[in-house]
């Protein structure tokens, strides 16, 4: 017998996780649908996930190394990593937070776990980021950077940043349903975070007295973890910072899924 009960805030993460696990086939279908509709119509198809970072790296090389004469030859790689990680976070949040509103027609036609709509965005960004990062070993080989065991931090950072974005989008999508202005606030916040998260500058450019504060921002810390993983330079990253980042991602996910599961049913009425 199926009885309607309103879940408590604390059970939210478990309900969300179970629901995604139970409906993983539908989720994979949705992600494949999005990949097919995003890249299927192009002649170069999935190659665009690689061509985009290659193109940006070339632009940064021309601007910073050739035109500005910056001696740091790793700067284009550092910026490319920053942009890839940040744009994965930004797209997960901006697209995920509007998923309920954009899919209101579907939500009112058929019942399915609505967190799948958000998980679809996050999984799509995870696949896209993973495909884009294929450029990293190629670039490392070109620059003569050896691949070391610290490269194992790269998947940790990738999963961590997507989980952080997913958690944010879970509670933001409820706010967007009730107050549409939230999309503008998200948009402005994401633009501000772009400049505050060290996308265009690495931790080496931050004065030492501010470095601790800079790395309290989990997005900045994840970007630095990626750079450390690729360059095998752990001078700015400690196990404590990595643990803190993962902990923050899990905490934001727990809060987001708690809020989502508690308030999604009322939000649907407002769609």
């Amino acid at each position: 017998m199926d009885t309607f009960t309103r879940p408590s805030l604390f059970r939210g993460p478990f309900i969300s996780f179970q629901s995604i696990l139970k409906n993983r086939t539908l989720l994979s279908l949705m992600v494949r649908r999005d990949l097919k509709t995003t890249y299927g119509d192009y002649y170069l198809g999935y190659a665009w996930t690689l061509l985009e970072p290659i193109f940006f790296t070339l632009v940064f090389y021309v601007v910073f190394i050739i035109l500005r004469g910056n001696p740091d030859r790793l700067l284009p790689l550092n910026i490319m990593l920053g942009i890839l990680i940040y744009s994965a976070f930004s797209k997960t949040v901006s697209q995920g937070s509007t998923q309920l509103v954009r899919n209101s027609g579907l939500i009112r036609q058929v019942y399915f776990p609505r967190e799948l709509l958000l998980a679809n965005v996050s999984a799509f960004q995870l696949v896209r980021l993973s495909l884009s990062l294929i450029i990293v070993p190629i670039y490392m080989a070109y620059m003569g950077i050896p691949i070391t065991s610290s490269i194992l931090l790269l998947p940790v950072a990738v999963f961590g940043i997507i989980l952080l974005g997913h958690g944010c989008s879970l509670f933001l999508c409820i706010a967007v349903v009730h107050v549409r202005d939230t999309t503008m606030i998200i948009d402005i916040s994401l633009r501000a975070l772009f400049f505050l998260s060290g996308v265009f500058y690495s931790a080496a450019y931050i004065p030492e007295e501010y470095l601790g504060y800079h790395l309290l921002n989990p997005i900045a810390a994840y970007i630095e973890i990626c750079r450390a993983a690729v360059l095998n330079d752990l001078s700015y990253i400690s196990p404590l910072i990595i643990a803190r980042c993962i902990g923050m991602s899990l905490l934001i996910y727990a809060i987001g899924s708690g809020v989502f599961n508690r308030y999604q049913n009322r939000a649907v009425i407002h769609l």
Partner: protein
Amino acid sequence: MKTNTAIELKEVFLSYPKERNTSPSIKNIFSLKRRIHNEHQSTLSNLSLTIEKGEIVGVLGHNGAGKSTLLRLLSRIYFPDKGEVHLKGSVTLLAALGTGFQKDLSGRDNIVLSGALHGIEIEKIKSLIPSIILFSGLEKVIDKPLRTYSSGMRARLGFSVIAHLDADILLFDEVFAVGDSSFRSRSKKRILEMVEGDTTVVIVTHNEQLIRDLCTRVICLDDGELMIDTKDTEEGIRQYHRSSNQKDES
């Protein structure tokens, strides 16, 4: 809940905000005027209803009476503000044709996606694909993108998918009249097949003949309240007309 009961609603209340489908903004949230006027309007009010397993219930009512809201509540799309809802068995709502269809995917891919959204196991959908394609009569174009289909072809494909859904409780919301006359007659035959046996069915329709042909019970909603509930379908339809006429006169 008794063992033979499929659906049980106890004193259910559900309200919509009055300014539904508008975009609330920060300005409106702090507006006193909006706070006063945007009260919630009751859509289902103190609704108690028990439907036995195998019953075929026709739901009548004016536009805005709460018929579709009732089906959405039973299919878990909506959640009651107050009261209890108990369901026994799997539930499928057939409210729209082409649920989840994506114009850039082929007809075949859309069958899989739409079926999965309705909760069918992927292996089962794959086994149903030949039958769905045959029923739709779209064999020649099934691998072409949906954007190349006419609206009639899309509706036929959509109906063919939902005509193959299976559940213990089926909820129909005005999805009967699609396609040409031959397709409509096949659709009606298929619906009759779906509702036979011990499947519990709730049908929202303005087609009174369909209610006479299919239903074993009629209920009528008015402003979210249960006004008529009878197993004599002809008498139920008559009472509905009488109350409609009285309402029109007043």
